[in-house]
C-alpha cells in the first residue's frame, strides 16, 4: 500500500499472487523420497462462499467440471462448510499430480469469475512414518507455502518440526519467509 493509500484509507483486497501452486507437484516427490512424507491422497481448497447468485453459479459450474474430469482421473469431490463459515472443497485422488491439477481448476474458476480474493488457502495433507498428519498450506495472496504440523492436544503445533521441514525442503518450494505469517489452521478435515 502506498503512502497516498494509507492517507486516504483505501483498502483493496490483494489479488492472488502469481501462482506457484504447481511447485508442489515436484516437491511432493522429494517429500516422499527423502523425508518419508506420503500424500494422504487428499487436498483441499478453502474459500469464503459469498451469498450471491453468480457466486453460487460459479461454484456449481466448477464442481460439475471437476466431477466431469473426475470420471477420467478418478478424483472425488466433496464439499463441507466449517464453523467459521468457510467452504472446503476436498479432493481425493491417489495420484498426487491430479490433486494439484484439481485444486488449480477450483482456484482458476474462482479467479476467472472475479472472486479470486475470496480464496483463503489450499491445503495438501501428508502423513509421516508414524502416520501423523503433516500439512503444507498454500497462501494464494502471497504465492507461498508453509508447513503446519499439529502436535496433538488443543491448539498445539510442532514449530520445531515445521522449521526443520522448511530447511529440509530447501528451494524446492517457495516457502513463506515471514514466520508470523505461518497461520495455523485448526481442525483440518483431511
Amino acid at each position: 500500500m502506498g503512502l497516498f493509500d494509507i492517507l486516504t484509507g483505501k483498502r483493496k483486497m490483494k489479488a492472488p499472487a502469481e501462482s506457484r501452486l504447481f511447485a508442489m507437484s515436484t516437491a511432493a516427490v522429494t517429500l516422499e523420497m527423502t523425508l518419508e512424507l506420503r500424500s494422504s491422497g487428499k487436498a483441499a481448497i478453502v474459500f469464503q462462499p459469498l451469498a450471491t447468485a453468480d457466486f453460487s453459479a460459479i461454484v456449481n459450474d466448477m464442481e460439475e467440471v471437476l466431477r466431469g474430469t473426475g470420471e477420467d482421473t478418478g478424483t472425488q469431490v466433496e464439499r463441507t462448510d466449517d464453523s467459521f463459515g468457510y467452504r472446503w472443497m476436498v479432493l481425493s485422488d491417489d495420484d498426487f499430480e491430479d490433486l494439484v491439477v484439481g485444486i488449480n481448476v477450483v482456484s482458476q474458476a474462482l479467479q476467472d469469475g472475479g472472486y479470486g480474493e475470496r480464496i483463503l488457502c489450499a491445503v495438501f495433507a501428508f502423513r509421516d512414518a508414524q502416520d501423523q498428519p503433516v500439512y503444507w498450506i498454500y497462501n494464494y495472496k502471497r504465492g507461498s507455502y508453509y508447513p503446519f504440523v499439529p502436535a496433538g492436544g488443543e491448539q498445539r503445533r510442532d514449530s520445531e518440526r515445521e522449521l526443520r521441514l522448511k530447511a529440509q525442503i530447501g528451494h524446492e518450494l517457495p516457502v513463506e519467509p515471514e514466520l508470523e505469517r505461518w497461520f495455523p489452521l485448526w481442525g483440518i478435515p483431511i
Partner: protein
Amino acid sequence: MPRPTSFGKDTGLQLRMTLTMFLLGLVYVVLIVALLGAGASGVTVALIAGGFALFQLFGSDKLALRAMGAREVTPAEAPELHAMIDRLCVQADLPKPKVAVADTRMPNAFALGRGPKSATVCATTGIMDLLSPAELEGVMAHELTHVANRDVLVMTLASFFATIAAYIVQFGFFFGGGGDDDDNPSFMILFLVSIGVYIVSFFLMQALSRYREFAADRGAALITGRPSALASALTRISSGMQRIPQQDLRATQELAAFYIFPPGVGKSIGAIFATHPPMEKRIAALQRLEMQLQGTA
C-alpha cells in the same frame, strides 16, 4: 465475464478524506508560521508537544490496554478468536497482530498500535457474548482495517499541531504573563491564532475520523465479503450500548476514536462533534456495498 473485483470504488469518500486532510494541513501551516513568528517560546512548545506525541505513538499501547482492563491472550486461552483473526489476516494479507480481551460487559472492540507490525486488536467479553461468529468477524475485520490503514498513526499525526494549539491556548497566560513578555505582540498573535487553529482543526479531525470509520467499514466488508453481517453487528451493538449505564462509559472517553462503536453517544451530541458517523449512515453505506455485491446496485 471476468470481473476485476467484487466491489466498486468509493471515489467520493476518498475525495472527502483528501479534502479534509488538505484543509487540516492548511490550518496547520498558519499555526507553524505563527509559532515561528513567536520565536523561542513558540518553538519550545512545539518541541514539548512533539515529545508527547512520540511518547503517545511508541509507549501508549500498554497504558491504553491497562486502562481498558484488557490483557493479551494466547491462542490456548481464546482459540476461536485467534483462529478467526488468523483467517482474516490471511484474507487481508496482514501479519498477525497481538490479540487482547477486556473483561467488561460493554460490547466493544478497538485497535491499537502505529502500524501492522506493532498492532493489538482487542475485543471485550461483552461483544464476544453478544454477537454471532459472522458478526464478530465483521467487527474484527473492521479493527484490522484500522490497523492496515494505520489509523492510529494518521490520527496522531493529524492531531499533532492541534495538540500544540491546545497547549498554547491552555497555558497561554503562563507564557504570556512571564515578566516582560506582557507586551510581546507576537505572542498575543500566536495565542489568537492557536484559538482559531484549535477550533477549526477540532471539527476537521472529527470529520476525518468519521471518514476513516467509513473506510474501515468498507474494508471490513471487502475482507469478509459480508457487508450485511457487519451492519447487523452494528445494530446489535448499538442497542446493547443503550442498556449500559453511563458511569461505566465516562472513564473510557479518550479511546473513543478507535472503537468499533463510540461509548456514551447521546442524542444531545450534534453529528458534527462525533468521532463516528451516525449508525444509520454506516448501515446505509454497508447496504450499498451489499447491493454492489449482489449486482443490484
